[in-house]
């Protein structure tokens, strides 16, 4: 409650504060702290949030998503659409028109050749570009004149806003990166640490995994911005100490992603030096049900593959009962507070794509018990259900994280109430989310019955995200355990619908299909049991004005508009 009050206060303060835009560099220094330290300033070589967001202060895309998830033009004057003729009627090309007089921070003009080069850079075969998915289906980039960029696609592209859109896919300067194509990309240390950009700041010193110092870009397109002359971007430590530095000691102005229990944040906010802020995106904490048998008795190579369906969880009623036993509202209250909402959807946002599925929110222990009885699982002598001599016992794994371990403990107890015994396991994130095929503990290998983690999608269109659950994307030994269909969910009807989504252009039809796909995974089959729609909590000092938390793009997307409240 306290947190809520504070948040309201912050909104009010922001509305009242005078928007006193003086001149560039008049407000001195701003200090940002990220508890994960940026290791590189080139988003094409690292997709880590910390790296992308640090780079977003320097390099910019043609268009960004704003805090509501809508596209806003940045280096262009307007967003191309079919209506204004920017997108070809057959959806096979998109034409962007650069703003007039744009300059790189070194004073040279930004031209369409830079965009063409950026695409070449990311699409070079040996470059190991982290964002090459953004350039999927791009056939060529043409430059009819200095300011016009035409992106041609290999086929109709219903959503053409991937390349050059969002913090993941900014424009880089051709002159600076010209010798860094392909395998050479790894060797251009100076360019990777200090890219020349169009953003409000330029790098003066980059200490990887430690601290970045920046100063205002003299050639920034708005002569009055940024208000700050210098910027310090410190990395490292943990969420708690970052929170303390902004909320309690006031040493820093902005702290990123405070993944802390709500009452801990509320207590810190009592320090009075800063304000926590939150926003929601598409990140959903969920339990994934393993549709295959992870038993260690199976030979290696058959374990957790489609060859052996899961002995317990293959029954849809069982999965549903497990979901019904969970009180999502309580989970949110304990783990996330204002930064979480109970959800039953895999795609919780944008509104257009979110299914109106709320059945799972109310906990129903009796219903769950009845469902398990119906499925033939009867309560045994020790209070644990059994069927045909087999005990209802699950292994529940997740990555190491204080909130996740609390969730595990709570859910274990709820499942115990319906007669299910749960063994808990936590694995360090660097192993769990690593794709090492030799490790038994990766989330792809899924050598457990259920597992919990969070995932989201870039931008606002869930096509690729929902496309992860087709049959052939299941991780298996022959694919070196790579694949995104973690549950090994396989339904031909689903695959067909995904293919249809890829061909549909009309936005309302797309939304309809996406909702249907979402429901097939969640409320119809209970393969994925969403728990919490997780927001982002960050904090800014009370003297820092102009902060608008954005979960659809870089969180510090509008640093150019920040100013010091005097």
């Amino acid at each position, binding site marked *: 409650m306290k947190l809520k009050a504070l948040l309201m206060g912050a909104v009010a303060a922001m509305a009242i504060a005078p928007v006193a835009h003086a001149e560039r560099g008049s407000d001195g220094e701003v200090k940002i702290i990220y508890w994960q330290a940026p290791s590189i300033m080139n988003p094409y070589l690292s997709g880590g949030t910390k790296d992308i967001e640090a780079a977003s202060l320097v390099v910019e895309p043609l268009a960004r998503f704003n805090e509501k998830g809508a596209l806003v033009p940045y280096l262009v004057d307007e967003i191309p659409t079919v209506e204004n003729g920017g997108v070809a009627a057959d959806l096979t090309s998109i034409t962007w028109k650069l703003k007039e007089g744009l300059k790189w921070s070194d004073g040279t003009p930004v031209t369409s050749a830079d965009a063409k080069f950026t695409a070449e850079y990311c699409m070079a075969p040996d470059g190991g570009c982290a964002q090459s998915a953004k350039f999927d289906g791009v056939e060529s980039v043409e430059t009819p004149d200095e300011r016009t960029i035409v992106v041609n696609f290999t086929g109709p592209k219903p959503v053409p806003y991937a390349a050059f859109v969002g913090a993941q896919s900014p424009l880089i300067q051709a002159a600076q990166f010209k010798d860094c194509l392909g395998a050479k990309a790894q060797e251009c240390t100076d360019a990777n640490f200090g890219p020349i950009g169009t953003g409000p700041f330029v790098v003066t010193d980059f200490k990887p995994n430690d601290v970045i110092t920046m100063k205002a870009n003299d050639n920034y397109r708005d002569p009055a911005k940024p208000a700050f002359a210098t910027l310090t971007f410190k990395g490292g430590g943990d969420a*708690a100490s970052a929170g303390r530095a902004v909320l309690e000691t006031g040493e820093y102005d902005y702290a990123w992603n405070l993944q*802390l*229990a709500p*009452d*801990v944040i509320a*207590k*810190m906010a009592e320090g009075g030096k800063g304000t926590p802020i939150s926003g929601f995106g598409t990140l959903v904490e969920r339990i994934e049900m393993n549709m295959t048998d992870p038993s*260690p008795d199976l030979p290696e190579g058959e374990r957790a593959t489609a060859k052996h369906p899961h002995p317990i969880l293959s029954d849809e009623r069982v999965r549903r009962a497990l979901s019904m036993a969970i009180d999502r509202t*309580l989970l949110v209250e*304990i783990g996330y507070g204002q930064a979480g909402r109970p959800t039953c959807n895999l795609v919780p946002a944008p509104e257009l794509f979110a299914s109106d599925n709320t059945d799972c929110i109310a906990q129903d222990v009796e219903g769950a018990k009845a469902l398990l009885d119906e499925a033939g699982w009867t309560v045994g002598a020790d209070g644990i259900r059994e069927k045909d001599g087999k005990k209802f016992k699950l292994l529940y794994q997740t*990555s*190491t994280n*204080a909130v996740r*371990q*609390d969730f*595990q*403990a*709570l859910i*274990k*107890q709820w499942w115990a109430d319906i007669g299910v015994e749960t*063994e*808990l*396991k*936590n*694995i*360090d994130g660097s*192993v*769990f989310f690593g794709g090492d095929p*030799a*490790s*038994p*503990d990766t989330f792809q290998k899924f050598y457990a019955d259920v597992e919990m983690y969070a995932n989201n999608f870039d931008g606002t269109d869930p096509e690729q995200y929902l496309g992860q659950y087709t049959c052939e994307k299941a991780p298996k030994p022959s694919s070196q355990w790579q694949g995104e269909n973690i549950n090994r969910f396989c339904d031909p009807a689903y695959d067909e619908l995904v293919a249809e989504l890829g061909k549909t252009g009309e936005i309302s039809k797309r939304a309809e299909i996406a909702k249907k796909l979402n429901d097939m995974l969640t409320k119809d089959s209970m393969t994925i049991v969403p728990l919490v729609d997780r927001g982002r909590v960050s904090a800014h000092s009370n003297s820092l004005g102009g902060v608008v938390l954005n979960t659809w793009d870089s969180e510090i997307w509008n640093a150019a508009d920040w100013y010091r409240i005097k």
Partner: protein
Amino acid sequence: MTDTPLEPVAKDTSARSQWWDVWDQFKTHKGALFGAAVFLFIVLAVTLGPLVWTIEPTFIDIRARNSGPSLAHPFGTDQLGRDIMARMMAGGQVSIAVGLTAMAISVLLGTLIGVVSGFFRRLDGVLMGLTDLFLALPLLPLLLVMVMLFRETLSRSFGPEMGTFILIVSAIGITSWMQTARIVRGEVLALKEREFVLAARSIGTPSRRMILRHILPNVLSPIMVSATLGIATAIITESALSFLGLGFPPDFPTWGRLLFDAIDYLQQYPERVFWPGLAISLTVLSVNYIGDGLRDALDPRIRGR
């Protein structure tokens, strides 16, 4: 060894063994007695306590979460409403067992390697090379590999809990013996050239006897110090392992884990850090005093006085 006073032997008959002397001396050491009493109290509290205080340490009473000390929960409850006293007891069993066993493994291994390396010159190079190697290996990847290779095998042969226990104590033991080995070796190198050892060697005492009777008793005090410090390290290391997912399941309380989990709540609920912190410190302190007493009691030069 050479200057053991003769009077006690004259007074007592052979029925009185050396260990009685040790005990007599130990009894006169107030700190040691006090330490032993505290240690015994802690061990009894964590082993017999759960018989009296029957709340399950993993039971979640969500309505009672974050409550302060009360009759129902003398130490209060944590963020999920689990009883901290029950968790302290359950955690103590594990932490003390892990601390003592891992320390024993590490000290035994360290002493063995140190004595052998210092005493037999031919083995010195190889064994100290091995020590350098273990000191140099990055700990975390080493543990990850050990867990990856042995977890399934161990939990299959000893059951999941015992398997994890064996894995953790051997992981801690195997990665922490090097300091003891180096210290013991340094002492042995010096002792080896002392007159009484040379004398013993000149009358043809076999190596085994030399080590057990002449060398070991004289390197006892650094070993004792290593052992006391080792317990503290083992208890803390265990929590780090579990935190990384290399140890016990996440809902399994141990003192190290309770302390770690309470840090975030340091400002709101300082008592939550207090209990595990106190328990670890008291255990280490009491073992330290017991060690002090034992060392004095085992030293014939002091015992005689």
